[in-house]
């Protein structure tokens, strides 16, 4: 009797749940995409994570943007790639011309003054722009054209080749939204850049900072509207972010719009789901339409089901990220390159690729993917060879003791190494375990130290490790290895503390080389050197896996994050409506 109320209330609840709202026409249905973290802040000056970068690409446009079809940088707001002019040996001038059709939402054209304003905004103290400030401090001056307000020249410090792409990779912001009185135009950019941190900022700068802070751009990006195709409609923190296509966008009037200026979906709904298993279930229940960066195991398991194969499309694309095992060459035990070569023979890259990535990925002999034209195919692939490892250790001077450990003559220290890797990654754990087991067979003591991501980063920078397993992010835009191997980067990105005069020279030569044949020769030389010195062992390149609803058309996959071009997606119905009924 007393459970009557419970039963009746339960039935009421269930009946309330099952009243489904009427299905919307699929044409206007949003595309549900999975994000694993919240973008945190949609501030165009600071990008807390990759999702914020994606969101900024929807809301704003830059001079040059990623073209996912060709994996290269193409002109977006600029009409074409900039004209490069080297002045002396340390200055570059890049000439840009903005598209005449480019307009802000209120009808004003996008002019060189907006670019100038954006660069100056990056230098204002008190705003969350510290990263942008350092990244774009190589641009020293914006020279406007007195005749054409859309033509300007960027004067940059240095002459690296990848600086050309970097000079256009920031979102252009409207001057009219925050600085309608043009108070900052009179101030040269170099003055702002060289302003000492302790000095009080100038009054117009301080006023601008106050206006920016009161606008709360991080949560309401609409206060600093961009010229991109989408605007933010709803943002439920940690739940979902909804973007809606602007009804009238300036690029719609271009008749031969390049790929980067096409925006087909009407509504983009990003659902934030941190747990992979829950996201897979949501995908199968059709609550998600696009699932990027799926793990290899769930990718394979989903494909075994026939019903899933009929409803979803599966894509694999090789990425530019390579898993490497790095050695700290400044440690006494690892100083000799023969020791490092011996340790590199204890890894089993082929087996590890098959085990962790289920074969999806590609083995490599250097830091370049096998599809790269500069890949050195004359180097032999590394395999698991314990006998070779033993021979190399003996050659390096290590002597095997009766208790199984290895020691250098004259030293009491056995060969014991600490292997650091990021704690929450299964791939790294498997690699670490395999290395440890192989080393234990030979008598080398390896201690595994799974470390939290932030602590790992600072440990790598300070050199507090012997061996590490990590992923190096690559890109198709630049083959800049000085980041990882030049001696001036020791303490920041050169975690292996590789310090060789000859390699430094080689890297500097590669940086400025533009002749393809000579560059190929230099890069082959470089890969051989890395194979000989072994500051790190590249294991394999990872791939991006994508699963989409089969009803989505124009899925363009790419090796770069996020792995697909979101602006090209379209529902099948819309596509057929657009192209007319098929006979």
């Amino acid at each position, binding site marked *: 009797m007393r459970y009557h109320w419970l039963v009746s209330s339960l039935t009421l609840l269930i009946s309330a749940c099952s*009243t*489904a709202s009427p299905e919307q026409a699929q044409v206007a249905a949003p595309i549900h995409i999975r994000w694993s973290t919240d973008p945190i802040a949609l501030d165009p000056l600071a990008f807390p994570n990759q999702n914020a970068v994606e969101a900024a690409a929807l809301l704003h446009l830059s001079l040059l943007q990623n073209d996912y079809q060709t994996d290269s940088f193409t002109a977006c707001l600029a009409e074409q790639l900039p004209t490069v002019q080297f002045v002396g040996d340390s200055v570059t001038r890049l000439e840009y011309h903005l598209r005449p059709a480019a307009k802000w939402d209120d009808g004003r054209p996008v002019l060189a003054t907006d670019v100038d304003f954006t660069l100056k905004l990056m230098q204002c103290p008190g705003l969350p722009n510290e990263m942008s400030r350092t990244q*774009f401090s190589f641009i020293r001056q914006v020279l406007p054209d007195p005749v054409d307000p859309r033509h300007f020249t960027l004067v940059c410090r240095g002459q690296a080749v990848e600086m050309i792409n970097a000079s256009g990779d920031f979102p252009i912001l409207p001057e009219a939204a925050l600085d309608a009185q043009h108070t900052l135009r009179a101030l040269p950019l170099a003055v702002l850049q060289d302003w000492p*941190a302790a000095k009080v900022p100038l009054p117009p700068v301080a006023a601008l900072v106050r206006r920016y802070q009161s606008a709360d751009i991080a949560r309401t990006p609409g206060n600093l509207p961009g010229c991109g195709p989408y605007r933010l409609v709803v943002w*439920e923190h940690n739940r979902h972010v909804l973007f809606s296509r602007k009804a009238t966008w300036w690029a719609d009037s271009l008749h031969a719009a390049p790929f980067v200026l096409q925006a087909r979906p009407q509504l983009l709904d990003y659902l934030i789901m941190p747990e992979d298993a829950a996201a897979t279930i949501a995908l199968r229940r059709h609550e998600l339409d696009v699932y990027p960066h799926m793990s290899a195991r769930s990718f394979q398991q989903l494909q075994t089901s026939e019903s899933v194969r009929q409803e979803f499309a599966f894509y694999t694309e090789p990425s530019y990220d390579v898993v490497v095992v790095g050695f700290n060459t400044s440690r006494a035990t690892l100083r000799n390159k023969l020791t490092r070569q011996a340790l590199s023979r204890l890894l089993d890259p082929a087996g590890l690729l098959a085990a962790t990535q289920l074969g999806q990925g590609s083995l490599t002999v250097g830091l370049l993917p096998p599809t790269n034209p500069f890949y050195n195919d004359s180097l032999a692939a590394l395999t698991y060879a314990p006998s070779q490892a033993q021979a190399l250790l003996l050659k390096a001077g290590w002597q095997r003791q009766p208790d199984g450990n290895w020691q250098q003559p004259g030293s009491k220290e056995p060969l014991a190494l600490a292997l650091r890797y990021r704690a929450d990654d299964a791939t790294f754990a498997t690699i670490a375990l395999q290395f440890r087991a192989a080393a234990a067979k030979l008598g080398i003591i390896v201690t595994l130290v799974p470390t939290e991501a932030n602590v790992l980063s*600072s440990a790598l920078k300070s050199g507090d490790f012997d061996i590490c397993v990590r992923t190096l992010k690559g*890109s198709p835009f630049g083959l800049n290895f000085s980041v990882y191997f030049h001696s001036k980067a020791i*303490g*920041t990105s050169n975690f292996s503390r590789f310090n060789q005069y000859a390699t430094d020279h080689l890297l500097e030569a590669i940086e400025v080389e533009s002749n393809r044949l000579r560059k190929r020769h230099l890069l082959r030389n470089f890969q051989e050197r890395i194979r000989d010195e072994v500051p790190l062992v590249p294991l394999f390149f990872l791939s991006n896996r994508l699963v989409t609803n089969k009803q989505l058309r124009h899925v363009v996959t790419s090796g770069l994050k996020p792995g697909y071009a979101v602006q090209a997606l379209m529902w099948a119905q819309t596509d057929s409506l657009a192209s007319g009924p098929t006979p």
Partner: protein
Amino acid sequence: MLAAWGIASLVFLVSRVLPVSPEQVALIEAEDLSRAVGPASAVQLAASQQAIRQRLGLAAPVFYITRIPGSTNDWQWNGLHNQYHDWLSQVLHGNLGKSYLDGQPVTTLLAHALAYSVPLAGSAAVLATTLALVLALFLASASGGGGRTLVQASLAALQVIPLFLLALTLLLLLANPEMLNLMPESSRSPAPNQLAAIGRWAGRAALPILSLVLAVLPTLTLPLAASLRHELNAAYATTARAKGLPIGRVLRRHLLPNALLPLFTTLTDLLPTLVAGTVVVEVAFSLPGSGRLLAEAAAAHDYPIVVAGVLLLAGVRLLCLIAADMLYFMADPRLRPTT
């Protein structure tokens, strides 16, 4: 209240001493982005770190007195211009600061997150307590036999299963199109009326509440059942049974008030955990609750949120302790709290 302030101060001071600071975390994340600009040099990195530190207010000295670096026991007076003083004066005015990551006021963030967590945790606690009482009475009264062993074994099994495994199993069993698909579709259009809104919330919250209830049930039931069984051997229980009262009545009217004490202790321990410790459930079911907020803030070294969360939790826990003491007194007037 003093203890809450003490704990929050402790967390504040400890957080400033940790080796990896928020500005480093912000810059570490920035290295991973797929953009054309390359990584910064050491000098540039140091400059941007200092700039971030100044913007976030971390450049000032930490406390009124700090140890002079290098010496072991020389302290210097820093005056009122230090981080602790600023934080304290802000807290006393009700301002809990702004998050380091997105600059939003901490009170807004916490309020939003709690609006999700508190109804969830509250309903889970109520359901769990009623179920625990029912099961404990059943366990104490059933004199051996299959039912009792089964319930005991399943409670032990629930204890053993880690929370995330429980949540995952429920998700895979009850929301999977391949198995039972009981969870309703989540629709984004606004609800037609209030009842439908509650119904929709209940449908989405059913699985998380179920996993929370199942997770805390053994902790509440088993000590209570043991306590009841122990009380069954007492003299007054024998008297009651000799009087002819049915066993159920004996348990409910006579034994339960005496055996409730461990339940109060565990319940008051549980409530703060339900508010902030349910990270696993919130991550598994994609709920933007307070547990997840605190966990992510702790991982990203977003100290204003962490310190505010600790303050809140400490306050809740202390209130629960006071409530527990009051409940002891109500249940058993012989227990006077010590002076």
